[in-house]
């Protein structure tokens, strides 16, 4: 209830800034027009495009990042072997690889998923590795005493104990993935909310561009709710 009032206040503030010409009326349409533009027929398709690229990328990152993170956490040698490489690749902003992906793979959903996957990989990898490394030795000792060894020990004790940390990584990755998905659409014209917003802006359909932003925000909010 109070939260809705907060949203109402946000809309009110927007209208106030508009009518006071703090926000240029040309690029800040009335909230009613934005609301009306939410019915734009292209919007659901664009939302689906972003959602699919995001989900595919996140899935890709999880299927590589979590097992690799477990391996890095368990084996000091594998960890040592890959640390330098990880440390060099990780700071590269994923969006910097957009041109590479376009050149190597070409435009399309696969390219987009790969970029999202690259961005999401690092938080998942790092938090899984830390989670596994931080598992209370008492737990693994107990598991060993109860007869679990090797993979079985990892699957029944180590990974479950590292789950909270993996979840943290997943949360970070999920919101980062959405950022990269939208950025990729913006830069390459892949179908999705980013491209929708850019197109509407170029066509002078400013309320529709804002409607795209609102939907992107709602999508982000949803992702946040689902992962936390």
């Amino acid at each position: 209830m109070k939260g809705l009032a907060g949203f109402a206040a946000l809309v009110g503030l927007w209208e106030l800034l508009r009518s006071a010409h703090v926000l240029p009326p040309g690029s800040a349409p009335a909230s009613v027009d934005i609301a009306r533009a939410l019915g734009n027929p292209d919007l659901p398709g664009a939302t689906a495009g972003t959602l699919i690229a995001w989900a595919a990328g996140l899935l890709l990152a999880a299927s590589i990042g979590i097992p690799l993170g477990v391996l890095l956490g368990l084996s000091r040698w594998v960890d040592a072997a890959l640390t330098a490489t990880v440390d060099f690749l990780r700071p590269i902003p994923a969006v910097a690889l957009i041109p590479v992906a376009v050149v190597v793979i070409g435009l399309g959903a696969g390219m987009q998923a790969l970029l999202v996957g690259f961005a999401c990989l690092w938080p998942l990898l790092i938090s899984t590795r830390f989670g596994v490394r931080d598992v209370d030795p008492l737990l693994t000792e107990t598991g060993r005493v109860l007869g679990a060894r090797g993979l079985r020990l990892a699957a029944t004790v180590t990974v479950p104990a590292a789950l909270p940390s993996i979840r943290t990584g997943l949360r970070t990755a999920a919101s980062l993935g959405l950022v990269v998905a939208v950025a990729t659409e913006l830069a390459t014209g892949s179908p999705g909310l980013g491209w929708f917003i850019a197109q509407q802006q170029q066509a002078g359909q400013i309320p529709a561009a804002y409607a795209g932003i609102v939907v992107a925000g709602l999508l982000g909010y949803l992702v946040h709710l689902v992962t936390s």
Partner: protein
Amino acid sequence: MKRLLGLLVAALLLLVWEVAGRTGDTGLFPPVSDAIAELASIDPWTDVLPSAGRALAGFAIGVTLGALLGVTIGWLRGLEPWVRPALEFLRAVPPPAVLPVAVLALGATSGMRITVIAAAAMWPVLIAGVDATRAVEPGYLDVARISHARPVSVILPAVLPALIAGARIALGIALIMMVISEMTAATSGLGYLILQAQRTYAIAQMYAGIIVLGLLGWLVTAVFSLVERHVLSWYEDQKGIAGG
């Protein structure tokens, strides 16, 4: 020994890249030596510094605003339930989504780029500030009151670890926004350079640009960690003792 192994593996991967580049013929994977040679074509003054400057300016403005707003909202306890959902929504908007509109409103200027970087970097710090301020130990505030000190003198150091954790996330987002804002409607900067290189099939230069971006990312992260360790030495030590 282990450090050496890591470097060895990295060197091996670079070697694979080099060999693949020399034997392949697609032109998409130029040998790494070509990319490194192309580094010379990147002018630090006109290509790198403006980008880095905009990113740092936007980051600094965003983090400062986020800290001020976050601590204020967290401190005004009654306010929080009213503004929280609206804040969570605004925070959830993927920052690149506002770029087209920002270009429209502010033009393709440095100011616009700094604004979108700041707006993106602000949120992780703001939300961390709200949560941490609400969680400040009431006992600290009692001690401040009984000592006739202003609450802010204990709130700020108490929430600093959370603010810095938020700033660390903000740093990554600032770099993303730096690159993407230069890829749309720009005529200079590293993002522009990389995209332009791709469009003109100067593939080696494209990789050189990415290497520079990687180095830049590595450098700012390293400086950030250094500052963090200095400012939060007490916090790290305490965690170390609590953990071991």
